[in-house]
């Protein structure tokens, strides 16, 4: 279980994952050794799984971002597995999520521009297996994207 100090540590790291142990120790009022021990424990417990660099796809020329909401043909027993295995082979798919609800799977797809999107959509997405229905939401603007947890 997390205590208040763990939560404060994680909040600080969520705001800036590059913070080092000395800075964290200063902010919290613990010795660096104690901070290190807590971080090690959080890692061992699988709470803290690391960090990753955030890639700004727009800066790499991928100006279009589309959320594809897919309903699968569930009469086929392997619908999810087959579909996801196929979606993994599309390089422009950056997220795959499965849901309980009206939508079965969601793909986050990026493309350089609209003709590029249309090409990927027609040549690589539509041929994926067991699609019953597909809806697209095109991102106009990302208002909030930090994905931090309200610890």
């Amino acid at each position: 279980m997390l205590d208040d100090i763990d939560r404060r540590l994680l909040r600080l790291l969520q705001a800036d994952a590059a913070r080092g142990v000395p800075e964290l120790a200063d902010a919290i009022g613990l010795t660096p050794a104690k901070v290190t021990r807590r971080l090690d424990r959080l890692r061992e417990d699988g709470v803290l799984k690391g960090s990753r660099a955030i890639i700004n796809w727009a800066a790499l020329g991928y100006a279009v971002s589309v959320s594809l909401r897919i309903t699968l043909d569930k009469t086929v027993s392997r619908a999810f597995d087959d579909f996801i295995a196929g979606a993994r082979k599309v390089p422009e798919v950056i997220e795959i999520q499965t849901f309980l609800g009206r939508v079965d799977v969601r793909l986050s797809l990026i493309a350089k521009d609209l003709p590029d999107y249309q090409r990927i959509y027609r040549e690589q997405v539509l041929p994926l297996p067991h699609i019953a229905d597909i809806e697209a939401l095109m991102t106009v603007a990302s208002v909030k994207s930090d994905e931090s947890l309200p610890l």
Partner: protein
Amino acid sequence: MTLDDLDFALLRSLAANADQSTKQLGQKLGLSQSATWRRIKRLQDAGVIAGRSLVLDAEKVGFGVTVFLGVKLATKGRVSLEDFERAIGAIPEVQTVDHVLGLYDYRLRVVATDLADFERVLRRRIMTMPGVGDVEANVLLSEERRPGPI
């Protein structure tokens, strides 16, 4: 900005694990520590690396439920989008807000401790917001991030 294969390899490696030191990364890619550092700096300065995000096990810190919400505004033109975006973004449980074109106007990612907690957030904080019309909720079962076209 033109990137070469080493830049792409660096991006792939850092997107998977940003805790690696420049020394470790350099060894993997056959670069010196300083050359690795210079390349990372260049990618940061160009805005290609937009930051670093912590990876937490949401369930282990008490957030057992993630829901994606599609929100349609009921009274378009009468509600200021800026006001709506500011208010919805200020709800701590709302992790992401995207303004979208299509069936819905906004796509939200919301976390909650459990379904009862989610219902509380939805009813008390989101549905009460001026202008919110049709809402569709889908509960996240699994999630996978892919490296992308690099």
